[in-house]
């Protein structure tokens, strides 16, 4: 059966198998250890909570795959909420608010992409710079306070806090849809393959006639827009533009993306792997919280499990060779 063999090859070739096992192990453990963990309500909660990192993670993974780095998402999360809330307060329109947020996100993506892809400045430096500049800009603009949502639109509240059919939080729905769309793009559209090629071997990609800077540029724009989506969802969950939102978010996302098997050197990785990485960390945080473990223990245990998960993954991969 060539079909099933292909499937088998896809499953064993990608690194998602061990990650899936890890996720199941985490879920299984907490299901046994805590009686409140395995409820529909809790699982959907976690999916909602994971959705921010998931959305931003898609973009970060794409940038990583294209052979660049994007660590600006933490500050972007806070920054895009400002035009969103300010415009909404002024116009009472959610659509205009979202448009304003996407505009800012787009501009940041364009700047990141222009500096990194066209001026060829190291992308870690560029996005680290953006991370600092945006955060400082948010503080300067807001004078270090949050900007409340005075419009009080119900649709805005529902965006981050409502649930589809009363079950699945909208942010989770959005993250899932985006994940599927981009998994399709990365796996089955020429653009996705161009991204993989640009990261896998930029010289070859160039010789094959690709406009490598443009591909990388597009990656940065997509990444910023996806982080903007996460920022909009977060703003709805917070009902305001909070200047300290997303501090350290970039660490969470990068950790999840790398845990998900996306290579830092480009050309390797899958969005499903990234999603599994996000879910492992989210379920871990939720489960440890359910066990009523003190923060310090939560940190220690999470750290240890990350090391265990990655070395297990590594070990499995080596065995296959």
């Amino acid at each position: 059966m060539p079909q099933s063999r292909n499937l088998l090859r896809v499953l064993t070739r990608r690194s998602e198998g061990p990650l899936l096992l890890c996720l199941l192990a985490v879920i299984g453990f907490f299901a046994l250890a805590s009686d409140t963990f395995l409820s529909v309500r809790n699982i959907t909660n976690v999916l909602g909570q994971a959705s921010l990192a998931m959305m931003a993670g898609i973009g970060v993974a794409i940038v990583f795959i294209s052979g660049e780095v994007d660590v600006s998402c933490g500050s972007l999360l806070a920054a895009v909420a400002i035009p969103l809330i300010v415009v909404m307060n002024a116009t009472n329109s959610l659509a205009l608010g979202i448009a304003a947020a996407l505009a800012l996100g787009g501009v940041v993506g364009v700047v990141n992409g222009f500096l990194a892809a066209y001026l060829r400045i190291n992308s870690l430096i560029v996005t680290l710079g953006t991370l600092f500049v945006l955060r400082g800009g948010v503080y300067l603009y807001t004078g270090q306070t949050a900007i409340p949502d005075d419009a009080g639109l119900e649709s805005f509240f529902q965006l981050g806090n409502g649930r589809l059919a009363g079950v699945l939080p909208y942010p989770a729905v959005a993250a899932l849809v985006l994940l599927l769309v981009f998994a399709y793009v990365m796996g089955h559209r020429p653009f996705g393959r161009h991204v993989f090629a640009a990261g896998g071997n930029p010289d070859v990609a160039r010789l094959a006639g690709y406009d490598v800077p443009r591909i990388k540029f597009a990656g940065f724009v997509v990444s910023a827009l996806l982080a903007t989506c996460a920022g909009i969802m977060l703003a709805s969950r917070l009902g305001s533009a909070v200047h300290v939102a997303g501090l350290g978010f970039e660490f969470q996302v990068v950790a999840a993306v790398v845990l998900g098997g996306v290579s830092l050197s480009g050309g390797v990785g899958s969005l499903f792997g990234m999603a599994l990485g996000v879910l492992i960390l989210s379920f871990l945080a939720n489960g440890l919280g359910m066990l009523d473990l003190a923060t310090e223990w939560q940190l220690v245990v999470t750290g240890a499990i990350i090391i265990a998960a990655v070395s297990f993954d590594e070990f499995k991969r080596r065995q296959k060779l």
Partner: protein
Amino acid sequence: MASSSQIQPQPGAGRIAAAMAGQPQAVLIVLLLLLCGAISLAAAQFYSLANIIAILRQSALVLIVAAGMTTLLIGGEVDLSVGASLAFTGCVAMDATNRSGSVPVGALAALAFAGAVGLFNGLVVTRLRVNSLIATIATMMILQGGVYLYTREAVQNQHHLAAFTGIGAGYLGAFPIPVLLAAAVFAAVYIALRHTLFGRYTYALGANPIAARLSGLRVRRLKLAGFVITGLLVGVTGLILCSLMNAGQPTAGRGFELTVIAAVILGGTSLAGGRGSLIGTLLGVLVLKVIDNGIIILRWNQDFQMVVPGVVIVAATWLDTVRVRRRAV
């Protein structure tokens, strides 16, 4: 050769510019001079002795760890746990000094602890083969949690040994002790990177690990050494910071790793391994610390302490790529 006559060095500024173009750290040197000049013009206090010492002392803290980080990055690895380790080390140092009443014991404890953290990172990376970025994020979490398991609050100075205070605030002749320590570390790591087998092997390791292995290098041990050295240097810094704060502060060191890495990459060290220089790192540290200091001296809104370095890092790196390209064409 028609083209060479066109780029005849012009007298004066042109010649200096041409000379600078050949100098790898040209952009940073110019930037540093410009910054210092501009800030001094606007606020004369900038070049007061007190301020220079304050800048140097702050730079020393970053530089010592950055020296280790430079070595690690050249070898193709990274350590994000240095900030968390810094805080923990301070607590251990103060606690050990309290218990033993001896500064050497406290210092040894600091080095032993931080060195052990480095060893742990190194073993996880070389033996379990976990990517160092994620391994050290994990270590960072473990240390952040661990320090609160170790002590609920700041470890107070109960020994009141003058020698301990001297590590951070003391002078040897005209020079603050942390600055001397940083100078010594700088010199040692500089020589190690440039003139010893260790340094040359580290560059090779980062540039092509397979070639390094085929040439019979002890790849794992080299990497391990990089982590341990970084760990030990965190120990030195932890000790200094603990002495300066006169307490072991579990909340210290937040974001320290970002400052260190920003300085190292500003200095031109490549993240891909195999390339970098300690002189660049020194300049990177100075630029960042002068900006930080200058904003306070100029009485600007301190929020600019994030914005300005962000812009400067990007701009300096851009100018440097332009410089390299111009020379190459």
